[in-house]
């Protein structure tokens, strides 16, 4: 049983002249988009190009400031996501809208049926049948928190199919999948499209756009730059349209002799937030003057690894050492003292405190330095902050205003500035360029390379394989809490890395 296949015009989606503004920026500037039923259409652009905003409008989460939306030939004005769902729009978000403690069937049913009683068996069977029809392997009575990320995403797709969506939108769906899972997803997408539905997916990855989309619309800085059939284009063209100039696929990275091992991790084990093991017997070493990358699909232990090294999460086994000194039992303050700098993924949260100003945030790592007995030397703190802000080109209206008002790039620069100002010998950096525009990304990458050249040992965790390949000397691949292999970046084979990301062991460098 598949869910009701839509009629010939049902899947047609047309967005015309969409404008959406937020304080300070125009997210969508007069954007048009037309997708036909039966088509797989990619929405391509860098972070900040306006892709998610546009789809949020189509899915009813936002109201456009101007422009029209039509689905199946009829003009629509969605006042809530629910209305969009009823009109046949199904969206699979980047951050899944699933209720963790409930089961797959309960999540699929949420808001989709109006019977008073929860009739368990019958509905579970319906969900199972639906899953079967699309090749989605998932157990209807499993609780969401027990499922892998890929499985959870498939539950999201099931939800849309259950509601007989005529338009399926996927937001960066492969961000959390291995290359093999991504291929499986593409198969599902094709099947759905073949029934006459429209499939729109948001991506910033050229490879997959070329692989699965029929047509692609490129957005840049809020505007629609082009719409083409993928058959009529190639990666280089698309990249140019996306970025607006010739793109260097590799950042210039000089050769550098690495020194002695500085950060070593041996047999490290740790438990995740849900009580399940997150790290299993992880052994790595980062040498002075090298960047060791950690590749892997998000959720395979990378975050827990950085937290254990920083002292924010206890290890259940193994040890961590810096410069030969065992810091496994050390507090975060002691690790900072041992020369550790940490730029967490969670910039405005663990890294910086959004409601406090630059000075207060810089003081976070150097509280003792600015103390005079019990009292704070406010003058010194302000001077030091001012220097840092100048040196690292952080643009802010005032050192006292909450840092949440700064742009993403400046926040990251401030965070990095603060960490580097302590002149750490070891730097652990997670997702440093996520969500940043091209200018800020280049600046951050340059800073990291500078540190490496100056002899700092850098552990770089990133979901962007291109970034890792261009910045790192060696790359470790993590899968389900284990290190599958470590390879030299110089001769690395993307497919080999992809296989390791999916769980098959590879060579060790």
């Amino acid at each position, binding site marked *: 049983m598949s869910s009701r296949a839509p009629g010939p015009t049902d899947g047609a989606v047309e967005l015309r002249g969409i404008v959406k*503004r*937020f*304080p*300070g*920026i125009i*997210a969508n500037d007069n954007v048009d988009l037309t997708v036909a039923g039966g088509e797989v259409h990619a929405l391509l652009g860098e*972070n*900040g*190009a306006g*892709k998610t*905003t546009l789809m*949020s409008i189509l899915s009813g989460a936002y*109201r*456009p*400031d*101007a422009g029209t939306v039509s689905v199946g030939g*009829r003009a*629509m*004005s*969605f*006042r809530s996501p629910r*209305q969009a769902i*009823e*009109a046949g729009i199904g969206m699979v978000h980047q951050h899944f809208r699933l209720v963790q403690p409930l089961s797959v069937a309960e999540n699929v049913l949420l808001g989709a049926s109006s019977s008073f009683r929860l009739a368990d068996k019958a509905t579970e069977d319906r969900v199972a049948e639906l899953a079967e029809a699309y090749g989605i392997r998932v157990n209807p009575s499993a609780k969401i928190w027990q499922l892998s990320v890929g499985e959870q995403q498939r539950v999201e797709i099931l939800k849309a199919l259950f509601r007989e969506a005529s338009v399926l939108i996927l*937001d*960066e769906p492969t961000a959390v999948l291995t290359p093999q899972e991504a291929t499986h997803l593409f198969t599902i997408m094709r099947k759905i499209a073949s029934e006459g539905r429209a499939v729109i997916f948001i991506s910033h990855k050229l490879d997959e756009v070329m692989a699965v989309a029929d047509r692609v619309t490129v957005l840049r800085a809020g505007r629609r730059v082009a719409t083409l059939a993928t058959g009529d284009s190639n990666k280089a063209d698309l990249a140019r349209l996306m970025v607006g100039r010739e793109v260097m696929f590799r950042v210039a990275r000089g050769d550098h002799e690495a020194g002695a091992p500085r950060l070593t991790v041996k047999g490290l084990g740790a438990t995740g937030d849900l009580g399940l093991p997150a790290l299993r017997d992880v052994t790595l070493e980062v040498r002075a003057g090298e960047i060791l990358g950690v590749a892997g699909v998000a959720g395979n232990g990378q975050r827990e690894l950085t937290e254990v090294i*920083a*002292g*924010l999460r206890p290890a259940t086994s193994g040890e961590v050492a810096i410069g030969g000194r065992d810091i496994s039992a050390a*507090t*975060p*303050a002691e690790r*900072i003292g041992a020369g550790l700098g*940490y730029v967490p993924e*969670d910039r405005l*949260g*663990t*890294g910086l*405190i*959004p*409601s*406090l100003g630059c000075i*207060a945030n810089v003081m*976070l*790592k150097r*509280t*003792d330095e600015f103390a005079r007995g*019990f*009292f*704070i030397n*406010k003058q010194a703190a302000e001077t030091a902050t001012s220097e840092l802000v100048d040196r690292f080109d952080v*643009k802010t*209206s005032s050192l006292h*205003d*909450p840092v949440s*008002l700064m*742009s*993403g790039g400046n*926040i990251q620069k401030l965070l990095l500035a603060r960490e580097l100002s302590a002149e750490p010998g070891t730097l652990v950096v997670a997702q440093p360029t996520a*969500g940043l525009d091209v200018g800020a990304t280049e600046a951050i990458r340059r800073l990291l390379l500078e540190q490496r050249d100056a002899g700092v040992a850098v552990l770089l965790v990133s979901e962007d394989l291109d970034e890792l390949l261009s910045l790192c000397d060696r790359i470790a691949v993590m899968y389900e809490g284990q290190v599958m292999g470590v390879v030299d970046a110089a001769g690395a084979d993307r497919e080999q890395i992809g296989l390791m990301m999916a769980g098959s062991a590879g060579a060790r460098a």
Partner: protein
Amino acid sequence: MSASAATLRPRLVKRLLPSRVTRLAVRVGAVAAAFVAAALFLLLAGNPIGPVFTALWSGSFGSAYGQAQTILAAIPLVFTSLAVAIAFRMLLWNIGAEGQFYFGAFGAGAVAYAWPEWPAPLLLTAMVLGGMLGGAIWALVPGALRAYLGVNEIVPTLLLNYVAILWVDYLVHTVWRDPESLGFPLGKPFTDEATLPQLGDTAVHTGAIIALIAAGVIAVILRQTTWGYKIKVIGENRRAAQYAGFSITRNIVGVMLLSGALAGIGGMVEVSGTVHRIQADISPGFGYTGIIVATLARFSPLLILPVALLFGALITGGVELQTIGLPSDIVSMLQGTILFFALAGELLVHYRVEWRRPATSGEGEPGGEGRALPGVVPSGT
């Protein structure tokens, strides 16, 4: 789905940086609105509005006696509010200021009854220490439970209030009973050496000075010391504080001790300056009212002073209400109403209301500098 009718709908738009003027206006507006609401309530309940407000005024600011009483009521409030403020700043919900107040009074009383003949400066200082110690100990228990066992402090601090009051009640009925009190048991009166002296020839005692000093000290701690900075950081973002190396457990215990000590001094000052003995009812809820005062004052030690004065006036005014046959419970209701409006008003400080025509109008917020604002723009645009 048809286009919606062109009705204006209110939208909440976040203000980027609320101005001081807005903040003040909203708060003053809240107090005014609360009084209006109270007047309406009285009207509906068939009570005369005029006499009520007149009584409130005359009881508090309308006479020299009233003014003194107002200050006397404000003094213990300052201490409990400071106690609450410093804990709430760190998101430590110390609801036990009432119990810590009582236990501080117990501590001070123990000293006063043990060494009644000591010279006044020595005895009074020892009593202050006794009060601090009593309050601190009473706060230490829930503080330690929270710091080391992760037990949420809301219920323990609160239940310990009842226990502290029962404890003092017990002492007043047995060991510390004044043999001359008939019927209703009272504690033995304090000696002159154990009594805080008056200020000049007013009815106000030197506890007022101690209160001012306490507010000043806390203000300095919060603004100028590293401890105050750590408290602020932990309250704003625990994770970042942890990463910065601040010991959360040590700060929880430290802040609870300070909080309890402050409430405890309040207890000492009340029994030594105003009541002159230990007795069962030394607080008409100072610990709880302190929560309202601290919240209204946005946990600022200096703002606590005028707000405490206002609420002291309400308490004294409430006593006056009884002369026209109304229970002073009305004052609790008024206090609660003021805070309700102030809390609700907070929304207006951070957001303003815009009337928009849906889906057609094009004005967003004026752009300003034209830079992206991650706080408002959702991730992954």
